[in-house]
C-alpha cells in the first residue's frame, strides 16, 4: 500500500519532468516504474504509441512502444529488445533509455526511420531482482517440470542462510571436485585432475534435495526462459526450454506482432550474446547445409561493418565476449528464422583488470572481484559461512559466493553513460537503413502519343535492401514497382514489377513505353526500404 502510494507520487513526478527521473533513480527500476516511464513518454501528442501485446503467465504486461511519424509503416525500422534474460536488468534500462533519449534528443531520426521498443520480454523473471528472495532468474511464471520426473518445480532454491540471496553452497567432502582458488580464497575452482589436483568440496546452488533424488536445485520454481525457447536450435526437453518452441504466450505474442511489421530491417537485442564487439564467424560447411547454421558470407561482411561502427562508438573494450549465441535464443532467431539483420550486445561486461604482471585473469570471477575492488564495490560477495543442512548431517556446509546480478549488471550509476553510447550506436545503425531513390529520370517522346520513361532505381545505403538470408525468407517483401497506367496503355514495361534485391549502393534501370498524355505516378520500394515516388509528365 505504502509502496503503491510512493510509486504514484513518482509517476506524477515523471509526467512533469521526464528528464530527471531516469537519472535521479538509484537502482534499476521496478516493473511498476518501467510502466510509468513508458506511459510518461507515450502520452497524447507523443510520437510513441504504447501497447500491451499480452500478459504473461505471471500477469505482467509485455509492452511495445512503436515510435514514428508520418507513413511510419513504410519507413525502415529498427526493433530494440530488452529483457531477453530476466536477470539482465541492465538490458531493460538500456531499451527504456533509448526510447526516452530518442524522443527527447533525437526526434529527427524519425524522419527516416521507425523504431519498435520491446523493453522487457521477461517481466516475470525480472521481478526477482526486486523480490525479497533475489536470484538470477530466467524463466517465466509457467509451471514446468524441468527435470521431467513427473513432479513440477519440486526442487528449487532454498535460502539457507536467510540473507535474501541465492548464492552457492559448498560441502566439505573428500569426493568433491572443487578446491579453494589459490589466488583468491573466496573463490572455488574445479580441481584440475590432469595436474593431479584433488578436490575437497562439493559445489551446488544454495538448495536442498527436496525430492531426495540426489540432485540439488534441478527443478527450479520458474518456468520457460524467453531466450531459450525460440525456434533456432531450440533445445527441446532441456530445463527452461520446455517441450515445444515458442510455447509461451509472450513469445507467441511478440512473434505474431513482428510477423506483421514488414518494415523492420534490423534488430538490436540487449542480451548476453555479443556479435557487435566482434562479428559472427563464417563457416562454409554450416552455411551450405539444408539447415543453415552459419551466418551467410555476405551477411558476415555486413556484421563486420556494423561491428566496426559499434567499436568506434562504445568506449568499453571487449573482454571475455565469447558468447555469440546460445541455443533457442532470440537474437539468432531474428537472423536465421526472420531474415533480418540482427545484432546483440550485453551493453556492459566486467572490464578487464590486469594484475601486477600486466596479465589479465583468465578466471572470470577473479577478474570480477579484482574489478569490484578497484571500484570500491564492497557489497558484491557473501562470505562463506556455515549452515546446518539436513541433507548433509555431520558435514561442514557453507553458503557464500558472488552475489546474484552483479556480474551482469553494473552499478546503476554507470548506466547513463552506457545508455548514451548505445543510443548513439542504434541511431548510427538506423542511418544506414536501406533507402530506395529514383535517379536519372528521363521522359522521351517517341511520337504518335508514345513516351519512353527511363529511371534508375538506386539503393542509397551501405546495406543491401535484402540481406543474403533475407532474400531466402518469406518474411521480407520484395521491392515492388507500380506505374499508374492501365496495362492497355503500356506498350512495354510491366504494370507491377517485383525486384528481389538491390545491393548496397546498387541500382537497376526501369523503363516503360507509355501511350497517351497527362502524367504518370511511379512508386517503388518495400516497407523496410522506404517507398520512393515519381511523377512524370508525358
Amino acid at each position, binding site marked *: 500500500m505504502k509502496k503503491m502510494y510512493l510509486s504514484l507520487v513518482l509517476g506524477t513526478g515523471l509526467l512533469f519532468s521526464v528528464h530527471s527521473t531516469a537519472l535521479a533513480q538509484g537502482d534499476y527500476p521496478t516493473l511498476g516504474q518501467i510502466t510509468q516511464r513508458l506511459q510518461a513518454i507515450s502520452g497524447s501528442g507523443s510520437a510513441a504509441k504504447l501497447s500491451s501485446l499480452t500478459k504473461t503467465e505471471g500477469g505482467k504486461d509485455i509492452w511495445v512502444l512503436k515510435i514514428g511519424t508520418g507513413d511510419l509503416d513504410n519507413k525502415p525500422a529498427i526493433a530494440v529488445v530488452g529483457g531477453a534474460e530476466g536477470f539482465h536488468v541492465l538490458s531493460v534500462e538500456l531499451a527504456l533509455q533509448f526510447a526516452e533519449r530518442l524522443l527527447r534528443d533525437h526526434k529527427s531520426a524519425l524522419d527516416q526511420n521507425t523504431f519498435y521498443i520491446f523493453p522487457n520480454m521477461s517481466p516475470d523473471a525480472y521481478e526477482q531482482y526486486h523480490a525479497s528472495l533475489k536470484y538470477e532468474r530466467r524463466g517465466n511464471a509457467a509451471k514446468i517440470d524441468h527435470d521431467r520426473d513427473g513432479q513440477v518445480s519440486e526442487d528449487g532454491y532454498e535460502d539457507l542462510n536467510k540473507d535474501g540471496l541465492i548464492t552457492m553452497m559448498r560441502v566439505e567432502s573428500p569426493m568433491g571436485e572443487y578446491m579453494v582458488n589459490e589466488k583468491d580464497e573466496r573463490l572455488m575452482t574445479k580441481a584440475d585432475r590432469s595436474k593431479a589436483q584433488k578436490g575437497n568440496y562439493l559445489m551446488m546452488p544454495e538448495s536442498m534435495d527436496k525430492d531426495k*533424488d540426489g540432485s540439488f536445485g534441478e527443478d527450479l520454481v520458474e518456468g520457460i526462459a524467453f531466450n531459450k525457447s525460440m525456434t533456432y536450435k531450440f533445445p527441446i526437453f532441456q530445463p527452461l526450454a520446455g517441450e515445444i518452441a515458442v510455447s509461451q504466450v509472450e513469445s507467441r505474442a511478440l512473434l505474431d506482432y513482428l510477423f506483421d511489421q514488414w518494415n523492420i530491417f534490423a534488430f538490436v537485442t540487449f542480451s548476453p550474446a555479443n556479435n557487435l564487439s566482434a562479428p559472427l564467424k563464417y563457416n562454409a560447411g554450416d552455411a551450405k547445409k539444408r*539447415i543453415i547454421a552459419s551466418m551467410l558470407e555476405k551477411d558476415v561482411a555486413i556484421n563486420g561493418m556494423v561491428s566496426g561502427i559499434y567499436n568506434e562508438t562504445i568506449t568499453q573494450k571487449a573482454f571475455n565476449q565469447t558468447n555469440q549465441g546460445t541455443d533457442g535464443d532470440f537474437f539468432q532467431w531474428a537472423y536465421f528464422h526472420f531474415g533480418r539483420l540482427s545484432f546483440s550486445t550485453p551493453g556492459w561486461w566486467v572490464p578487464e583488470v590486469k594484475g601486477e604482471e600486466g596479465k589479465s585473469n583468465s578466471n572470470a570471477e577473479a577478474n570480477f572481484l579484482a574489478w569490484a575492488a578497484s571500484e570500491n564495490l564492497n557489497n558484491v560477495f557473501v562470505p562463506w559461512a556455515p549452515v546446518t543442512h539436513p541433507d548433509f548431517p555431520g558435514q561442514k556446509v557453507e553458503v557464500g559466493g558472488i552475489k546474484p546480478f552483479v556480474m551482469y549488471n553494473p552499478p546503476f550509476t554507470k548506466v547513463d553513460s552506457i545508455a548514451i553510447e548505445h543510443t548513439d550506436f542504434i541511431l548510427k545503425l538506423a542511418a544506414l537503413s536501406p533507402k530506395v531513390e529514383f535517379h536519372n529520370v528521363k521522359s522521351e517522346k517517341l511520337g504518335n502519343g508514345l513516351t519512353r520513361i527511363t529511371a534508375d532505381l538506386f539503393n542509397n545505403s551501405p546495406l543491401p535492401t535484402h540481406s543474403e538470408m533475407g532474400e531466402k525468407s518469406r*518474411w521480407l*517483401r*520484395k521491392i515492388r514497382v507500380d506505374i499508374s497506367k492501365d496495362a492497355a496503355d503500356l506498350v512495354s514495361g510491366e504494370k507491377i*514489377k*517485383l525486384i528481389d534485391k538491390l545491393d548496397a549502393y546498387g541500382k537497376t534501370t526501369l523503363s516503360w513505353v507509355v501511350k497517351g498524355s497527362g502524367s504518370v505516378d511511379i512508386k517503388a520500394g518495400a516497407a523496410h526500404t522506404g517507398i520512393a515516388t515519381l511523377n512524370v509528365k508525358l
Partner: protein
Amino acid sequence: MKFKNWIYTTALGLAISFTGIQETSAQEKYFRAIGTPHNPKVPVSWNRYHTNLALEEIMRDMAKKHPDLVKLESMGKSYQGNDIWVLIVTDFKAGKAEDKPGMWIDGNIHSNEIQGTEFTLYTAWYLSEMYGELEFITQLLKDKTFYIAPTINPDAHDNFIKEPNTQNSPRSGMINMDDDGDGVIGEDPFDDINKDGHITMMIRKSPTGRYVKDQMDPRKLIMVAPDQKGEYEMLGYEGIDNDGDGFVNEDAIGYYDPNRDWGWNWQPDYVQRGAWKYPFSVPENKAVMEYVMKHPNIAAAQSYHNYGGMILRGPGAEEDLGTYNQTDIRIYDAIAKKGEEFMPGYKYLVVYKDLYSVFGGQLDWFYGGRGIFTYSNELMTSYLYVHKNAGRGNQDEQMMVDTYLTFGDAFVNWAEYDHPQYGKIEVGGFKKNFGRLHPGFLLEQDAHRNAAFTILHGYHTPKLSVMDVKEEDLGGGLKAVTATIYNERLIPTHSSQDLKYKIERPDYVSITGAKVVAGFVVDNEDFNRLSEQKVNPEKISVANIPGMGAVKVRWIVSGSGNYSINVDSAKGGKASWKK
C-alpha cells in the same frame, strides 16, 4: 367429413407403421455380409463424401445412438471458427477412457485429401456398431480408447468440396498469405472459367503448339513427335491474371502446409517450404497438440493423407535418423508388415528415404515429441482400379477407367470459352474428385482395410497385468513380495524416444495394505540383482514395461494381512491385484 378423414388417415398410417416395424426387422430385410454391420443403428452410405454438415450429423447420431460407446468433443476452433471434432470411442462402462491406452486417428490435415475423413469416420462407426456383436471388438473397446478426429482441417475440407479447386488445392487451411511477396494477400487465385466447381486445364489452338487431341479419344491431349507440328498449347490451370502483374494464379489461398507446422525439428519456410511462423502457429494444429498433451494415454497414432498406397513411418527428415532406434523400428516393422499383407497396393515405407525429406511433419512430432508410435497412410493408389501398376496419373489408364467404370463421370469435356487475356481457349480435364480420391465403389473396402490396420495398431498398445505374485518368508516377521508386471502386447509403455528424453513419467507399481521396509526393481530374479528405491518404496518407479515382456518388483514387508498391488502407467493403462 374432413376431420373424420384425417382421423382415418392417421389411424391407417399408424397401423402401417406398426406392421412396418414388425415386417422390416433386420432378419427380414438384410443378411449379414461377413465383416460389416448389416443393421447399423447409424446408417451411413460409405460410397460418397460428406461435407462438414453431414459429418456433424453423423457424429452426433453416433454419440446419441451409442451413449455408452461414443462421445463427441470439440478440441477447439479452426481459423474460421468451425469446431474441430473428436470422437471418443470406448466402452465407457468398463473403466475411464483416460485410464486406457489410447489410439489416435485423424484425417484431412491436407485439405484436398478428404478420404481420410471418411476412413476415420468409418472406423468409429465400425467399432461402435460391432461392439457386442464381435467378441474381439467388444474386448478391444473395454481395453482401449480410440480418439478419432475425422477432419483436423474443417475449413478447407469444405472449401475443397464446395469451391472451385484442382485435385491438389487447397493443401493449406484457409489462412491467406502473400505468396508472391508483392505486399498483397491472396490477390490472384484460380478462376473457374466454366463455372463447374472444378479447376481443370486451359488449352489454346496455336500454330506453334506441341500437342494434338488424340483422334481415338479426343479427351486426350498428346504430345506430337519431335519433328511433327502440333495444334494446341497448354496454358495451365483455369485462371486469369487478376492483379495485372503478368502472372496467372500466382497467389491463391495459403500458402502454408499444415503438415510442416509441428514441433519436432521445426524449420522455417526457406528450409522447409510450407512452414509458417513457428510450431503450432496453425490454430487447428495447436488444438490437436493441446488435446494430445492433455491425453497422455495416447500410445499409438495414425494420420491419413493421399496419395500412393503407402504405410509411412518416420523419420521425416534424414537429420532425424538417430531418433528412431532399432528397438522401436522392430515394433513399427511388425505392425506395418502385417498391414501390407491385408492392404493390397499398400507398401510400408520410410518418409525421408522413400518419399521426401521433410521437417515439422505431424508424425515426427507424435513420435519425436511425444514418443507415440505413429503411422501416416497415403490413401488411394491406381492399383485399386484394375490391379495393375500403371503408375500415378497414367492418362491411358485413367481414361479407360472413366470410360468403362465411371462412364464419363470423371472428365469435363473440352469446351470453348473467351479468356480476357488469352482470347479463345478450351477448358476441360479431370475433375478435382478424380485421381487422388477414391471413386465411390472403392471407398468402403479401402476404408475397411485401413480401419483394420488402425485396429491392429490400437490392439498392440500395451495391455498390462499383475501376472504373478510370490511371497518368501524371510523370518523375523519379514517377507519378500515379488510381483511380475506383464505387457501382453507389442508396444511398450515408453518408446525408446520417450525414454531418451523422459517424455512421459515413469510407470508406478504400488503396494497398499502392507508395511513396506524396502522396495526394489528386480533386474535379475535368478541371481538376485536388485535396484533399491530408497525414497517412497511403496510406489516403485519403473522406467518402462517392454512390449511382450515383463518387469519385476519386490518389496520387503513386515506383518501379515492382505495387500493389493496397483500398476499405473500413463500410456499403458492400469492393472491391479489383490491378496
